[in-house]
């Protein structure tokens, strides 16, 4: 289990890095945390001809959380930094709740949020979190920069909206809406494993307690992370009581299209989507502040 040979670049600047990527396109892979890429390379499931190592570059590890709660997370921000950032803990509680479920401490010391999202593993937790939060993702290339809504970013299995010359340079999380609450829940065989099912829920309530908006997003629920619009709609415009929870759960079971694995059949994954929807929405409602 040793990687096949590759060319290894340590670019002198972000511009240099983007130029290299523009020149080599899909033949080149970005190396950020490497915690998904290196295992695949050791198993020779991935054989990139060229690696462009972002780690030596400065300026990509910016992590800022504004007073209102808007978070900007650069390409080299590692999970470790997210876990320990006071602003994230205070304002981006859904992300803070999800990150400790990603692998183990050693992996989180190296792995990056942007790398995870660009890898677009359908079993990962974080794409679902991005959908629930309504994140925007910044793509950069020598052609310039553009912002992509999370909803449009995850296209298919290991496939994103990034062009071959683009880098996922940053993620922006909007400020949590007022009178909103969130919850992240997953069921995994062991802590740190990919979830058999994961759900990220954000609920907004009117002062009278009725639901004004709901975003429910699921990991390991299909070729890419997905929302459950019908389940969300079933919650909006009413008080979230037991009947609403059950209705949303039933709709969520239908919304997911889980692939099944050696650990869970699609039927069990659907069942878990329903259970977790009920629990996560109830928790999110209880957390509304």
């Amino acid at each position, binding site marked *: *289990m*040793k*990687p*096949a*040979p590759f060319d290894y670049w340590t670019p002198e600047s972000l511009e240099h890095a983007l130029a290299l990527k523009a020149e080599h396109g899909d033949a080149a892979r970005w190396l950020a945390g490497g915690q998904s890429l290196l*295992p695949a390379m050791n*198993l*020779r499931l991935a054989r990139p001809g060229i690696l462009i190592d972002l780690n030596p570059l400065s300026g990509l590890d910016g992590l800022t959380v504004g007073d209102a709660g808007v978070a900007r997370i650069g390409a080299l921000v590692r999970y470790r930094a997210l876990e320990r950032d006071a602003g994230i803990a205070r304002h981006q509680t859904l992300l803070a709740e999800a990150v400790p479920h990603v692998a183990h401490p050693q992996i989180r010391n190296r792995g990056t949020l942007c790398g995870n999202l660009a890898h677009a593993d359908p079993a990962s937790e974080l794409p679902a979190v991005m959908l629930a939060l309504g994140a925007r993702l910044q793509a950069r290339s020598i052609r310039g920069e553009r912002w992509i809504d999370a909803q449009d970013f995850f296209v298919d299995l290991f496939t994103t909206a990034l062009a071959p010359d683009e880098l996922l340079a940053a993620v922006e999380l909007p400020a949590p809406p007022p009178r909103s609450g969130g919850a992240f829940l997953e*069921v995994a*065989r*062991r*802590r*740190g*494993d990919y979830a*058999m099912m994961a759900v990220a829920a954000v609920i907004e309530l009117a002062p009278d307690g009725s639901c004004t908006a709901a975003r429910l997003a699921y990991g390991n629920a299909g070729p890419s992370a997905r929302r459950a619009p019908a389940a969300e709609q079933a919650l909006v415009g009413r008080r979230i009581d037991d009947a609403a929870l059950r209705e949303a759960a039933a709709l969520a079971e239908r919304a997911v299209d889980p692939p099944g*694995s*050696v*650990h*869970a*059949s699609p039927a*069990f994954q659907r*069942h*878990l989507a329903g*259970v977790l929807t009920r629990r996560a929405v109830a928790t999110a409602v209880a957390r509304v502040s």
Partner: protein
Amino acid sequence: METRYVGAPVTRNEDARLLTGRALFIDDVKLGNLLHAAVLRSPLAHARIRAIDTSAARARAGVVGIFTAADLGAMCKPGPVVVRPPPLDGVTFNARTQMPLVKDTVRHVGEPIALVVATSRYVAEDALDDIEVDYEALPVAADLEASARADAPRVHDDLADNVAAHVRQTIGDYAAAARNAARIIKRRFSYDHGCSSPIETRGVVAAWDAKADRLTVWDTTQAPVFLRNGLAGVFGFSERQVRVVAPFIGGGFGPKIMMFYPEEILIPWAAIKLGRPVKWIEDRAEHFVATTHERGQIHDAEVALAADGRILGVKDVFLHDTGAYDPYGLTVPINSQCTLLGPYVVPTYDSTFTAVFTHKPIVTPYRGAGRQHGVFVIERLLDIGARELGLDRAEIRRRNFIPPDAFPYDNKIIYQDFAPLRYDSGNYAPLLDKLLDAIGYEKFVRTEQPALRAQGRHVGIGVVCYVEGTGIGPYEGAKVQVQTSGRVSLATGVGTQGQGHYTSFAQLVADRLGVAVGDVDVVTGDTDQFYWGAGTFASRGAVVAGNAVDQAAGLVRAKILRVAAEHFECAEVDLVLGDGAVAIAGVPERTITLAALAGIANPMRGAVALGTEPGLEATSYFGPPSGATANGAHAMIVEVDPETMMIKILKYVVAHDCGTVINPLIVAGQIQGGVAQGIGNAFYEQLVFDDQAQLLNGTLADYLLPTALEVPRLEQVDTVTPSPLNPLGIKGVGEAGAIPVGALFAQALEDALELPRRGIELNEIPLSPNRLWELARGEG
């Protein structure tokens, strides 16, 4: 004899080296001019090889040699049968063993096709990618039951079917006993055991010294002496020309004993052929298909019970998956057959098994070695029987225990060591009582569980019992030597994979010779240091080698006293040993160190008496007449989330009796590690194959070893019933923790979810959240 150390929680001699990174493991062996090997393995489970093209690989820079079966010549022949079938009437046994490299037909994924030797492992793996093999895919026998049918694709063309073995053993007349039964419980059980997954994979390093005419092989084997003898036979050397060293080994648990793994032949062969040392270190992907598994059995079993719950007899017919070959004979299914009897009086028994060839990796013993399967069957039958007769689960077990005055207890069938299955000693009821006390069984069942259920919580309890045949023969030996430095060296032939032999054996010597444990240097697993032995398996290290060590140390003690008595011109009875010296009792100024005595015992000049042997040294061998039977019982309280089927173990207690304990710290560690593996087997680990016998979860990301979050804190209680079969009274403990955990999980989870009330039983292992969910919904 003072027993200052035996029985004490002595910290380990080997730890300082291990903790600071100085211990030599196989991949640390560094030799000049070393080459690195990689093995091309079949991606298909059953195929004919039409052609192999190695030309591109040969042309790659850094590649030194590429070998296929054609290059091996006469060396390419089936390996030996390590364990012959037991001498029973009417036994069918079709021996089919693996080749170093496949000649024409592949029989499991991972079977070796070609060997690449290169200047680095990286280049060797590059060259594997260059080799082109033209395979003709053939139909696959994957599923155990389907493979047993007459129309299944045959694993070995020269056999009429896939039957590897067929064995029946009986006690008395089961059919007659069944006619008198108040109740007959009949069920189908399936039990699947996984792979041992030591954190260190296997490895072989070989160096051929043409000038000395000697082959040295470092190998992660659990049986270095056997490997040395085998290699000498294969290469036509005398045993003295071969040295096998089993260095520090990163866990074994059984599969590191298989002889020969193909690489154990190929690497020495390549080293001789190329005239350069060669190293092969198995990687994790290889490990999942190239190292042996244990896997599954399907039992159709019944128990005939009297109205009071007494067992009148058991009948069992089972299938055993042996994989593509059966080099380890019938050890695993015989263990299942024998261990099923448990600590119980089973007056009649009719047990038949069929071992079946499948297109899967080879099955050999892995910690428990089939005992789990048998324990699961009898324990589940008793659980169901108790329920149907309205008896308490603990009570039905107590009523069936072999009484303490019935030992030695003859089960009248043959065990894996070919000796009659005779339990040497035991006292089962007091141990069960201790267990029930420790877990708080009565209180839990009567008050706590009803209260928890009233709160809507799903919490269950389980209680299971087992025996373990340990410490089987044939023999081990030990050589004890007092060095002129005053340190004591001890060499034995067993290999060690973390069991603490460097310490427990040293404790035995230290007590005999009056030295500190830290002054005893233990060498295990180097055939140049100790010539004879069988190996580390079947929970036998402490029992068999331990007694040999004790005997050898006793002989050295006698020699010390004799030499010292001559030196002081006094009687031996006046001498005392302690602090590394011998003194005349009551005359402390008349003292001589062992170091000085060792010098005296090896005079450079002068004459010695006729028959004098030099040195303070002795070698001794010990072979028990048959195995010592350890026993135990486990109990667990577990909570289940009935929606997600995630579990939480709230309390886990182990009660065990392994006779005399040399080192309670080491015994506790063995039990804890065994239980952890048992928990993995019960709820996390399963080798999942598709219908083409492709392993679907061959990584440590998908084959789920328990972590610190899945394994609970254990409580341990014990009783001590010494074995009369060896002077120290030891019974083995290596496998005990792992054996009953599957049965315990099934009972406790069933109880937590109140499944029997809905007519649902958990009659299979491993379970998982998904499987529990299916079963609880009635999807058998």
